[in-house]
């Protein structure tokens, strides 16, 4: 099978598209992908990774048909470079930021503001420069006037999983992740607060077809499926909120 799919640009007997998506979307998209394949007969190559990395690949003309990011930043930058089929961009899901603590935390933490307390010595967030969740966490903390004060406590992780691990293993007293990520830690972390939408930019998940796509129609079809009621219900089941409030 590996060999039959080697040639990813020439038209093959069996059509296939490549979808680069934020790794946090893995479970939801895999499910939607199965629906799609069953329906269209087109094979999907999923390429899950950090949004920033996926963006780099697309900028270097990787053969990608659809990009689904975990934040607006990467998509905006791709759009600015004219790498998207402009009319195909949609926001397909929304997320919220959760403040999490270890399951057996002694810190008695209930609000974001309490992060300033002395018994909270370390806080893990995504690296704002590379991880979308980190960017939103920064906005949130800035909005709450905590950003500069908390600086010395911050541990910058390269992906959400790292934040979860730190919190789950008690290396930090608290962390900020997406609401949809909390389930991944299998109860080792508890979400104690959720950030208000107005504390940060809209936490929207955009999707778009890449301009260089060889199968723009198949790609559009996938985007359509994601934003369809069917797709939305799969996403909802995996903890994502509807893009429209």
């Amino acid at each position, binding site marked *: 099978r590996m060999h039959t799919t080697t040639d990813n640009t020439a038209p093959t007997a069996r059509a296939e598209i490549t979808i680069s998506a934020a790794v946090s979307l893995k479970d939801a998209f895999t499910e939607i992908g199965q629906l799609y394949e069953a329906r269209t007969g087109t094979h999907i190559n999923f390429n899950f990774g950090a949004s920033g990395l996926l963006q780099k690949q697309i900028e270097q*003309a*990787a053969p990608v048909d659809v990009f689904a990011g975990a934040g607006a930043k990467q998509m905006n930058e791709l759009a600015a470079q004219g790498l998207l089929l402009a009319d195909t961009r949609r926001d397909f899901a929304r997320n919220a930021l959760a403040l999490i603590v270890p399951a057996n935390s002694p810190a008695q933490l209930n609000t974001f503001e309490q992060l300033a307390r002395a018994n909270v010595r370390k806080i893990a967030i995504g690296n704002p420069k590379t991880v979308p969740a980190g960017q939103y966490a920064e906005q949130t903390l800035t909005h709450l006037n905590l950003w500069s004060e908390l600086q010395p406590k911050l541990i910058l992780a390269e*992906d959400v999983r790292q934040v979860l691990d730190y919190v789950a293993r008690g290396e930090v007293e608290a962390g900020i992740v997406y609401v949809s990520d909390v389930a991944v830690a299998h109860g080792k972390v508890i979400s104690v607060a959720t950030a208000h939408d107005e504390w940060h930019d809209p936490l929207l998940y955009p999707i778009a077809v890449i301009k260089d796509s060889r199968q723009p129609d198949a790609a559009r079809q996938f985007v359509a499926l994601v934003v369809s009621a069917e797709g939305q219900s799969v996403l909802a089941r995996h903890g994502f909120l509807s893009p429209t409030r």
Partner: protein
Amino acid sequence: MIWSALKVSLLVVAVATVLTTALGLALAFLLARRDFRGRELLDAVLTMPLVLPPTVTGYYLIVLLGRRGLLGAPLYAWTGWTLTFTWQAAVVAATVVALPLMLKASRAAIESVEPKYELASYTLGKSEWATFWRVTLPLARRGVLAGIVLSAARALGEFGATLMIAGNIPGKTQTLPLAIFEAVVSGDDRRAQTLALLLTLVSVTAVYLTNRLSRAPRAHAA
């Protein structure tokens, strides 16, 4: 899917190890036995992939070999084919990051071979080429083998650069380490553990067997 990751990994490692070995040996010989300007500089530059974060190496690879890359663009124009997101890309990534290991280990081993044996071979009428294969290499075999094991292991574990240039496409470019990464990030700890165990098993077995074989039937001092 576990098996497909194993299959991809084995394929990539096999091809990459062959490439690394061939390239590494050629370069090691050049660096060890030829005196030319900028020799040590070349050695130092070839060590770079060891120092750069693999993701960054991967990024530079994609800049070089991607569809719009310095080499990738002409290739695409010529053949309509691009390396990105193919298993061959994973091979390239693994080869590039593993090469310094092969190179350094073999160079040291080749340099440690006493020249008198090579000279003796020349007086027996053997060319430099024949002498390299039949005298130098056998006498340097421990170091060379260490280099091969190191670079095969490195290729097997390669992750960052592969993710960048080959992507993470299950059944196609998703190697064991990538599968582990994906499982970990998506919270599938069970799967992650299984995969890690598999990876451990494969590599421990391979290294163990190599060690045993390389020492049988008995060690001869060079």
